Structures are given as C-alpha cells and as structure tokens.
C-alpha cells in the first residue's frame, strides 16, 4: 500500500495553543482535522509537512450555536452538519453530497472549506507525476492543462463553499493577533496553488451563517453516489410575501480555482418573480461565468453546456417545482 511520509504529530487542546505551534513551526506545519483529504494527499506526496497539528482535541471547534444566525464550529463533521436541523438547506445539501458516509463522519466543515484544489495532472501519486515530469502545482514547471499558463488552474472542489457564499456566510480566522471575520468568498484566491487567503498561522475556527435565506445547492458529477463536483450551483433568495425576490445570491463551484459569487445573476434576479423566462435568462448569466478547464472529470464542452440547466434546476426548486426526480439522477443520497 501507499505509505505516509514521516511527520511529527501535535495535538493542542486549545485554538491558542494551535496558533502558537503554527507560528513557531512556520510553513513546515499543517493543520489536520478529519484528514480525509490531507492524509491521502500526503501518501501521494502532494504535501509532506514536517509537523501535523491536529485540531481533533479542541472541543471548542465542535460547538454549534444558534441565535440570530447559526455558528458552526469548523471541526463539526460533515455528518454533524447534515444531521443538524438548524443547518440551512443549501449547506445541508452540499454537505450531504460530499464523498461517502464514512468520509462524512471523519471529514469536517472547515476541512471541506480548505480542501486542496484538484487537477487530473496533480491528484496522482508521485510515480505517475514523475512520468509526466510533474506539473506547475507541485514539483514541475508546466501547467499541462494550459501549457502557456503561468498560473496553476487546478479547480476548487469544495461543495460547502459555494453553498455558504450564496448564504452570505462568514468564516472566523484566529491568528496570533486575535480573530478576524471575512465573507466566505474572500477566503479564496483564483490561484490553484495559493488558493486560500488564510495565513499560515491562522486557524479557521467557525462559520457564521445568517438567517432568512431560502437556499439550494445542485451538484453535477459523474456518479450520484460519490464524486467531487464538476459543477456546483448554489442559490439563496430572500422573497417577500408576494414571492418577489428581494435579494438573490448565486454562487458557482468547481469551474475555477475558487468558488465565486455571480453578482450579475443576483442583480438580475432582484425585484423579479421566478417565471420560466426569468429562470432561463438567469441560467444564461450563470452559465456565462462557468469557464471550466479540462482538468477534471467529464467532457469540458459538455460541462460548460449544462451549466445553465443546473442553474435552472436550482431556481425551479426554489420556485417550488417538484425537482425530486431530477435530483435523484444526480444525487442518490439526500437526507
């Protein structure tokens, strides 16, 4: 079997202690929560941290509170998030469609937000990558997806991030100088290598989700049982009593190195009702922003072509259409 490289393991009991270790060890240290992404990546030598700082022993990170809005500790497992009745719909749907039951029991919300970007030339073991002379993201000089590109185009593959961006959520980052809160979309940079704005000595401690949004998440992937997304569409709406849209936020995942907000679609939807025409036009606006690369599963042009259909599914579901049959074709398990 593939073996892990050697590393030191630290198990702090508080966020403060974790931050201290990170600050002391510098970039050679990495945080690990569920380990469902990092440990396999270490086996393939994507990351070879000298020190692993585990967050599992910090009970504060597993808390949940609910007042005006909900606050999720970053180390709640994805299964915890799915089971929690207070979890907003888009987040629950996103979490429920990640990986498999075993992995959701181990994997955490914070871990999914910080998920390493993916690429078919990168998510391979060391020997395979040696056979192509490595790539820009790790140990090589060339981006094999776009050989002229100076930037790594590995794709953001987190499901929870687009859902949380649509829900207008914030993340809390704790560092040596205290805590800061930033919108989830600001956690990401459109760079396959340097994809997070989290500083190396910061710990993502919590996610704050405001109330009042009606939301949904649609995930496209090869198999409805488990797979990383090749397109994620999250939509959150605030509706008035006549079902007119007061505010709309549409976010896309898995079509760039970061998940992002499609502002134009949100602006377009504001003040409208979800007629078929409005849905079709909004779908076009969303699809225009989907610029997938040939670095993940399925045919590139096909992925681009179905983006508007997926945006349409999301909006129709929020309108109240019965979309259960359609959903079951793309997601075999939903709570």
């Amino acid at each position: 079997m593939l073996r892990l490289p050697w590393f030191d393991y630290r198990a702090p009991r508080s966020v403060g202690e974790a931050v201290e270790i990170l600050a002391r060890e510098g970039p050679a240290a990495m945080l690990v929560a569920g380990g469902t992404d990092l440990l396999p990546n270490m086996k393939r030598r994507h990351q070879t941290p000298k020190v692993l700082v585990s967050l599992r022993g910090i009970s504060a990170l597993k808390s949940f509170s609910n007042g005006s809005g909900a606050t999720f500790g970053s180390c709640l497992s994805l299964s915890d998030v799915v089971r929690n009745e207070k979890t907003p719909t888009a987040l629950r749907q996103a979490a429920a469609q990640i990986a498999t039951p075993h992995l959701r029991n181990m994997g955490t919300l914070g871990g999914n937000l910080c998920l390493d970007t993916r690429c078919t030339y990168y998510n391979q073991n060391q020997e395979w990558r040696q056979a192509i002379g490595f790539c820009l993201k790790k140990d090589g000089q060339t981006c094999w997806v776009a050989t002229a590109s100076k930037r790594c185009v590995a794709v953001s593959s987190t499901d929870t991030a687009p859902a949380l961006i649509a829900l207008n959520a914030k993340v809390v980052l704790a560092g040596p100088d205290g805590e800061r809160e930033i919108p989830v979309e600001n956690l990401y940079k459109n760079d396959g290598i340097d994809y997070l704005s989290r500083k190396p000595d910061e710990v993502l401690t919590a996610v704050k989700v405001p109330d009042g949004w009606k939301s949904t998440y649609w995930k496209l992937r090869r198999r409805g049982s488990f797979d990383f997304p090749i397109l994620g569409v999250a939509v959150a709406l605030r509706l008035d009593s006549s079902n007119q849209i007061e505010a709309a936020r549409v976010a896309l995942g898995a079509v760039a190195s970061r998940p992002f907000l499609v502002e134009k679609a949100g602006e377009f939807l504001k003040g409208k009702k979800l007629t078929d025409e409005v849905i079709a036009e909004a779908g076009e606006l969303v699809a225009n922003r989907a610029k997938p690369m040939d670095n993940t599963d399925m045919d590139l042009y096909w992925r681009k072509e179905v983006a508007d259909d997926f945006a349409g599914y999301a909006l129709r579901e929020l309108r109240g259409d019965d979309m259960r049959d359609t959903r079951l074709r793309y997601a075999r398990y939903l709570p």
Partner: protein
Amino acid sequence: MKKKFEVVGKPRRRVDGRAKATGQLRFADDFALPRMLHCKLLRSPHPHALVESIDVSKAARHPGVHLVLTKQHFPVPFGIMPVSVDEFPLTDHARHVGDPVAAVIASDEQVAGEALALIDVQYKKLKTISDPEEALQTPEPRIHEYGEQGNIHRNQSYEFGDVDEALAQSDHVFEDVFFYQGNTHLPMEQQATLATVEGDGKLLVTSSTQNPHYLHRQLARVLQLPGSKIRVVAAPNGGGFGGKCDPANHEMVVAKAALLLGRPVKIGLTREEVFYQHRGRHPVLMKMRTGVTKDGRLTGMHLQTLLDGGGYGSHGPASTFYTGVLTPVTYELPRFKFEACRTFTNKPACGPKRGHGTPQPRFGQEVQLDKIAEKLGMDPAELRLGIVTQPDSLTANWLKIGSTGLAECIREVVARSGWKNKHRKLGYGKGVGLACSTYMCGAGLPIYWNKLPHSGVQLLLDRSGQVTVYCGATEIGQGSDDVLAAIVAEVLGIDTGEVRCVTGDTGMTPVDLGSYSSRVTIMMGNAALQAAEKVRAQLAEAAAEQLEVTPNGLVFTQSQVLHPGTNKAISFKEAVEFAEAKFGTLGAVGSYTPPKPPGKYKGSGVGPSPAYSFSACVVETEVDPKTGWIHVPKVWIAHDIGRALNPVLARGQVIGGVYMGLGEALMEEQAFRRLPEKLSQALVHRIPSMLEYKSLTALDMPEVDVALIEYPDPNCPFGAKEVGQGPLLPVMPALANAVYDAVGVRIDEIPVTPDKVLKALELKAQGLSPRVGPDHFPSVPYPEPVFVVPPQEGGDGKETKREEKQRAAAAVV
C-alpha cells in the same frame, strides 16, 4: 434409486459465507509470517525505453534493505500462452509506464519505498506507440521482436463459406463501424503474494491468483525448479474477473527473493499498480458487414476487428480469436468471415476480462440488429426470435451448440419488461432496448497443449462421517467452493455443511486449470459428480449388506441411507463406517475432459465448449434531451443457466454481471493520456485510481429483475451451465439501443456518455446523421483467409485450400 433434489436448486447460504461475513477469511495480504520481508517494485516512468544501465549500489546499502533484484536475476521469460512467452519478471525493455525494472526487498514497505528512490536507472527512450493505427503505421521500433510483422502481434483470417457471394445475394447489406473502449476489472482486492521456503526446503507461494496451476508451471519455468519443489496456494480472491489469470511479475519476484534470502517475502500492489498489471478488456475497433433478407434472416457476415493489445502478449492470441468466434452462436448465420488483428502498443497489456474478447463484437452485432429491425420494420425481439440458433446444431464455424434457452430468455424479458407496450411507445426521452448474448461453459482446450484432464477432484471420507473434497479450482468470490460442496452433498444425501472443501492448492489438490472461461461449474462439477458417484456406490454396497436389501434400491437422503421399499435405514455416518470396514480407507477420484470439438481446421480450438449459456436483456432508459444525461431505472435479464445449483448465488452472479456491464456501458474507461509531443513523450493512464476510474457503486445501481431459465444441459453436472460471464454481455448493447429508442441517436461506441448523446442530438438538430462513433476502419494487412466449408454446405470441418475452393466453385458453375 433417484430422488428429488435436496441441495441442488435450493436457495442456500454459501459455504464460505460465514467466514466472509465475520472477517475470518484470509486474503493473500492477510497472511504474515515471522521474519517476513517486504518487496516494492521500481517501475518505468517511460512508456517505451531501454534500460542502458542500472546502479543499485546505493539502494543495496540503505539500512534495512536485504536484496535488490534486476533483470540479470531473471534470464528466463514467461507468459500465460506458449505462443506469447514475452515477459520477464523485471525487464530491461520497458513497454509501458509502470513496467517493473527492479525490486527492493527490505525490512518494511516504507524502507523498500525509500530505497527505490536510490536506484539510478539510465534509460534510452524509444518512440512511443499509443494506439493500433499508430502501431500499423509504425513497424519500427518493434515493441517485441516476435509477432507477425512490425508491431502486429497476431493477425488472423477465417472464412466459412463464400461471404461475398452471400452478401451479394442479400436484400440488404448493413455496414457499421463500432468502437469499444478498453476497461479494467477493478477487483476490490489488490493483488498480494507471499513467498516462503518451507521446512522441507520447498517453495510455497500464496497469492491472489485465479489460476494456481498455470502460475505453478510458470514459476517452475522462471525459477528453473522442478514443479515438485513448488507449491502454489491460491488464497480466496477478493474478485478476479480475469485480472488474476496471468502469472504476474510480482509473483515471480517475491518467489525468487524468498529462495535467495531464505526468508518470507511479501508484496501487496497499490491500486495504481493493479491498473498497470491490468490484462483487462481490449479496446476494439470493429467493422461489420451483414447481409439480411427482407424477412429478417441473416445471410452472412464479414467481421473485421482491430485490437489494442498493450505492451505484452498475455492471453492476446485467444482474445483475438474471441473477437470473432462466438458471433455465430446466437443467431443462424450461414456464412461467416472474420479477420482480426492485435497490435502491440506502449500501454499495460490487455487480456481476459469477464466475457473475454466477446463483449466487443456482441455490442456491435446487437446494435446492428437493432438497426436492421428498424429498417425492415420489424420488432427487434421478433426479429431475433425468428433467427435464434437451434439446439444440437452446428454453427458455420463448426461450434457445436447443445441446449439453448435463448428463445425462452427473449420471451421472458419481453413479457416481464412490458416490452410490447414500451418499445417505440414511451415517448421522447424514454426508451427500452433489447439485446442477447451467449457464452462458453469452459474453453474446450487448455491454454497449453496436453491430453490431460481439465479438472480433477478427490474425495476422502472417514468413520467420523466427514467428507473432504479436494480440487485445484479457485474460489474467487464466484462461489466455486459452494458448487463443489453442493454437488458432493447432493450425491451423498448430506448437507453442504458436512463437506469440507480444500481447493486451489497445487501441493494438496488435484489439478484444475483454474477459474477462467466460466469453466468451473461444468468441469470441476463433472469431476466431482464422478468421484461422488463412485463413493456412493461403495457406501450403497456396504449399507445394502447391512440392511439386507439390494444396493440400487437405496436412496441417499437427509444424511441417511434409506431403503424406501422396506423403510429400513442407517445413518450416513454408519454407512461410512461399514464401507470403511468393508473396503478399507474410503476415497475416490473423478476427472473431466471436454468432448472433442467438431472443427478440424487450424485455429478451431478457440470457441468450442461443452455447452453455451444464453442471455437476453432489456434496459430501460430516461435520457434528458437537454443535457444528454442517461438514467437507467430498471434492467430485466433472463439467463439460460441450464440449472441453478444455488439460485441465490446464481442471481448474485447475474446481478453482478449487469452491474459490471452497466459500468462498461456508461462510464468505465482504461484510457490513456498523451501530453503535447513537443514537450513530453509521456503516455500515461489517465486515471489509475479507484476514485477517478469511474465505475458504478451499489447506490448507483438500478433495480434488476432476474429470470433464471432452466433447460438442463446433458453435458453439465445436473444440467448446470455457466453464469459468471454471460449475463454481462447483453447489457451494453441493450443500453445503447435503449438510448436510441429514447431520443433517436446512435452511440456506436462504448461507453455511452452524456456528452456523446448531446453531441449526437446537436447533429440531429442540424439535420446531420444523428450518430457518434468511429468514422472509419483503417486498412489492415490481414492474411489470406483460412477457408472452411460450413457444415450446412457439406464441409468436413477441415480447411479447404483455395484451389479446391475455386475448383468447387467452377464445378458448380
């Protein structure tokens, strides 16, 4: 005296079920021995290269390293087929990325892995050949020094009756080109092998192999040891599907290392390495020209195939034949010509995967029949029912068909699926498709030429009443131990729980050729039947003496030996005691050799089987015309199994076949990636991981309605035919036909994916041919065909020389 079946046909818990469910069963990787060392292989990063030099000195000095092996330790090559002995356990000519060039044996896997990085290999890169067309155009450099010419490994041509004449006289000739992408077995268990020298000085190799007998022979060859000094134990396989049929490099390497070091040495392949060992489905390009009459009868077919063999021969010579030979078994086809060519390419070797070479032409044939039915305005099921082959008939290529339940299979799936109310009637976006298939119940000839039995079974009984049965057959999850126990138990009137199976051990069990070609139930089963009947005769004689009745009036039932006429009985255990007292130690052997095939021409050895199974399948689809997304709500399948020995296991095999078939139909691809040639010579497997090699999971499976059709075959034990491979075959074409029924587009290649459907729909919208598939079949230098007169035209099964053929033709004129 005959009795009703007590074991056969009853749904039972399988004999190895408890051990599997409780985790007590030990797979090869579960074995560990004191002082055991671990092995890792250094694999070539280049698709085609010569090893110019290799310096292992640093690796050998690395703490914890005991031995480093290279090509020089292995002067003798191996290969599963005598005509393709082309592999060295460690090579100096890498034919694909992942070809092993060195091995490190160390105290643990981690150390072995570290030492691999210290081996300095200088390669001379050679031109890379990535597909068959490139292989045809690139005779040099040769990937192997042997073969037909250039990079053509095998090239075959056969003609049974004058096909051109038949096509010329047909009302219609249909010409289609199809492509079937390669795919792999994806067993849950990754291969592992443990080799050790036992106390008696003999080598013991415990491995996840389907064929311990062939491995035994190849180990003797490579290690230059007498077979009597080697014992191979096939650990229960966590799935095989053909991937563990070939003897493998890693098995040879740990065996050699154990001999050199005198310590146990183990290796467990990573998932990626399993993709490199491969031996899976060949990618095949096919061209089919088929003549039909206006009332839907086939007149003749000209089939051409081009196989991508990968870097080694493997079972390739047989695979090449199999892309043709079973084509005439399902439907009456008076004349048949097939030309098949297998090329070498710089990719992991292809070989046998469930259905071995036959799913590819089956896909083409069944899709083409769907097109024929539409053109003739016939129902595809009725068309097929009109042309199914008859029992006890000979095909144009001299295969003997015994029993067949194909017509019943078709009628059954048509009725159960509501076909007549669905086909062409479900409305846009929904459809049903139908296809049929056949498969062999064991290859008529062994892989190496010999006149010996294909399967041997030995029975041992003692006064405790215990029955032990020994056979070289291998339990790979298919239930072979259960079949063995069931046959013995049925004959002796005892419960399967009373029978102990000792299987797959060349040091302990009589030879059985292995778990491949769907041969185990019929061959091992017939041998077991013979042995059990011999023992029963002895028991009956002893019991009759005690009961003062005649032996042939006795019935072996419910662990008793009963004389129904007088109602006298003794227990089975007592009968064994009396028999042991009367005859001495009780035991018997049985063996099985298939009947001689009727074909006498050179090459007629591939295709014959003692019996053929048949299947028919209906797949229902819902295809989204906007996205091309394919949803399969339900599959109906009927399989002519002859008789189901254990219906629970038989149904499991059918559903397993449907599962694998749907995976192939919808998504599986053993596909390779070339990088921009200016920048790199790499040719790598796109997705050697279990996550990214897409295959269905249990959650993705639709409901499967299984009908077992039972027409007992006289050549088979209790009439039982195969079920391990046949039910996979009709699924892929049925799916493609269902997609056509749903949205009116033809995807003439496998897999059928949403992007191809959408592309075909776009073509349709533009008024172009609504089809996605290969657009040409290249020119292949096939040889002059071997001409054989079909049985219906008065042939004798031998080759007719061309001059004779011409003379005969002239005489007719």
